[in-house]
């Protein structure tokens, strides 16, 4: 099930600047432009660059959530891009990853040397996030039978292998572990203390998905600056090299059912093959995974790593995926702790890059990170990044 043609990179690309706002449920103190500005400024400071050094700016968010047609024109003020070419790409939850991938491609193509990728979401300005996501479905049918991202089909899929009783306990334990990791991340949104009982007794959103299994609605922005090999070595002391990116699309929500398994599997199948990875949990040190809820962390990890749900649950129970574990998944707290939709996918790449660079902050993992995976997801798209400390 791999449809992708071979991709040729004309040159290697490194991440030289990372910026991210704090993520909160409400940011009434700033408008969209000012929110973007915070992330852009931090990334430029991190790289030691000014907007004049940028050859191109790519930006995006979840389409429609900003309530402005052509928001990119308004947002130019936010990143200081006057007379710098700018484009906008959007792809639902995958937007942040797609914005970064576009910047990467513009650079890898050989046309642009230094490119800024900028993604954000300000969900306190739109009343109904789920209404927006339901609006993704087919207007003549699917929209009448959708609850958007708050869905439980994946749990029924997991229940074919493991009973709900057994799985729910491990999922709750993992949720507590995620909250602990997020509490260390200064940028994370949900920094809460949880107990297993609280998770297991929280109300249903969509049976059997519970309130505390699900991600929050956040406001925040993220910014990456990428540069060609030659430039990256000049700009940054420790550029994080992008080894590879795989991106696939499928028909999104609704009537045909989600084709999530072939989508995620074809991403990792291709990425692992192209990079000679036979045992990802040994050859890669860390995984920043796009997990809309804890159950989908279980599901997507199983698909990406080619494991059964049972095997992944066992690893989860043993604490292998914890921040201090052998194969940390989401030491940042992941999407479950922070979901500023349009930039969430970019936050995965940014957090993985910071871990590789070794200065993520208090949530830096205890082991050395030479290679990291980051996944992006939303509606009908999945993406998998492989980042590396070295160019080899």
């Amino acid at each position, binding site marked *: 099930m791999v449809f992708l043609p071979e991709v040729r990179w004309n040159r290697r690309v490194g991440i030289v600047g990372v910026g991210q706002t704090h993520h909160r449920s409400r940011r009434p103190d700033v408008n969209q432009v000012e929110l973007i500005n915070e992330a852009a400024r931090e990334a430029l400071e991190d790289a030691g660059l000014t907007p004049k050094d940028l050859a191109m700016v790519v930006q995006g968010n979840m389409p429609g959530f900003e309530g402005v047609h052509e928001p990119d024109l308004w947002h130019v003020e936010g990143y200081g891009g006057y007379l710098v070419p700018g484009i906008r790409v959007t792809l639902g939850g995958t937007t942040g990853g797609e914005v970064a991938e576009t910047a990467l491609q513009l650079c890898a193509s050989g046309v642009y040397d230094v490119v800024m990728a900028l993604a954000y979401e300000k969900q306190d300005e739109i009343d109904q996030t789920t209404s927006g996501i339901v*609006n993704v479905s087919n207007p003549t*049918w699917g*929209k009448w*039978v959708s609850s958007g991202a708050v869905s*439980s089909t994946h749990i029924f899929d997991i229940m074919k292998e493991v009973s709900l009783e057994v799985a729910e306990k491990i999922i709750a334990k993992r949720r507590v572990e995620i909250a602990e990791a997020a509490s260390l991340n200064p940028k994370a949104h949900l920094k809460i203390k949880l107990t297993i009982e609280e998770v297991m007794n929280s109300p249903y959103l969509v*049976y059997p998905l519970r309130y505390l299994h699900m991600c929050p609605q956040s406001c925040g922005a993220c910014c990456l600056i990428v540069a060609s090999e030659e430039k990256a070595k000049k700009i940054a002391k420790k550029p994080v090299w992008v080894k590879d990116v795989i991106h696939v699309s499928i028909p999104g929500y609704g*009537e045909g059912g989600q084709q999530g398994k072939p989508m995620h599997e074809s991403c990792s199948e291709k990425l692992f093959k192209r990079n000679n990875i036979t045992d990802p949990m040994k050859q890669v040190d860390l995984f920043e995974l796009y997990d809309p809820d804890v159950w989908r962390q279980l599901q997507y990890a199983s698909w990406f790593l080619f494991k059964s749900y049972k095997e992944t649950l066992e690893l989860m129970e043993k604490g292998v995926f914890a921040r201090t574990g052998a194969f940390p998944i989401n030491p940042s707290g992941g999407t479950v702790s922070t979901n500023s939709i349009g930039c969430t996918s970019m936050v995965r790449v940014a957090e993985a890059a910071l871990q590789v660079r070794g200065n993520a902050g208090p949530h830096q993992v205890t082991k050395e990170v030479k290679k990291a995976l980051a996944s992006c997801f939303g509606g009908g798209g999945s993406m998998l990044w492989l980042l590396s400390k070295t160019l080899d």
Partner: protein
Amino acid sequence: MVTREVTAARKLEERAPEYLFVRTRALLPMRYDAGIYRSRFFVELRDHKKIWANKCPSCGRLFCPPEAACYFCHGVEMPEWVEQADEGVLQLFQVVYFPFTNPMTGVAEPVPWAHGNILLDGGAPFHHRLVPADEKVLKVGDRYKAVWKEEGRTGHFWDILYFKKVEK
């Protein structure tokens, strides 16, 4: 809780003493065309209370409601129609407990409500509403049958009101 951020670049003193906003309520009236295949599908619902699927000539998959092209076989036209029964086996269900505004109507529906996939007799998977919205009653593998709107069908999703369990 209102959180006020102070970044390194901007000092608190420079900020406004209170934060205001502008509220708008944009309406977005749309008229979505059903297209070649779904127009025929909706006419059959409206005039004959019949459910039709279309079939991919390449892989044989059935699509209900019909699609213009099979997304597995990449852009193949699908002119073959297969009639479906208005009942089948429940394959998957969801009971929605959290309220949200339906973007089609601008109104939040009362919760809980349920929807699910039914494998119709005739072979096509079909996605519609289920009654009752109770995970203790709904069971994968049970048989469910369509309850039709008897008067005033318009060629719409709601020409079928919901699917109801067939009592043995």
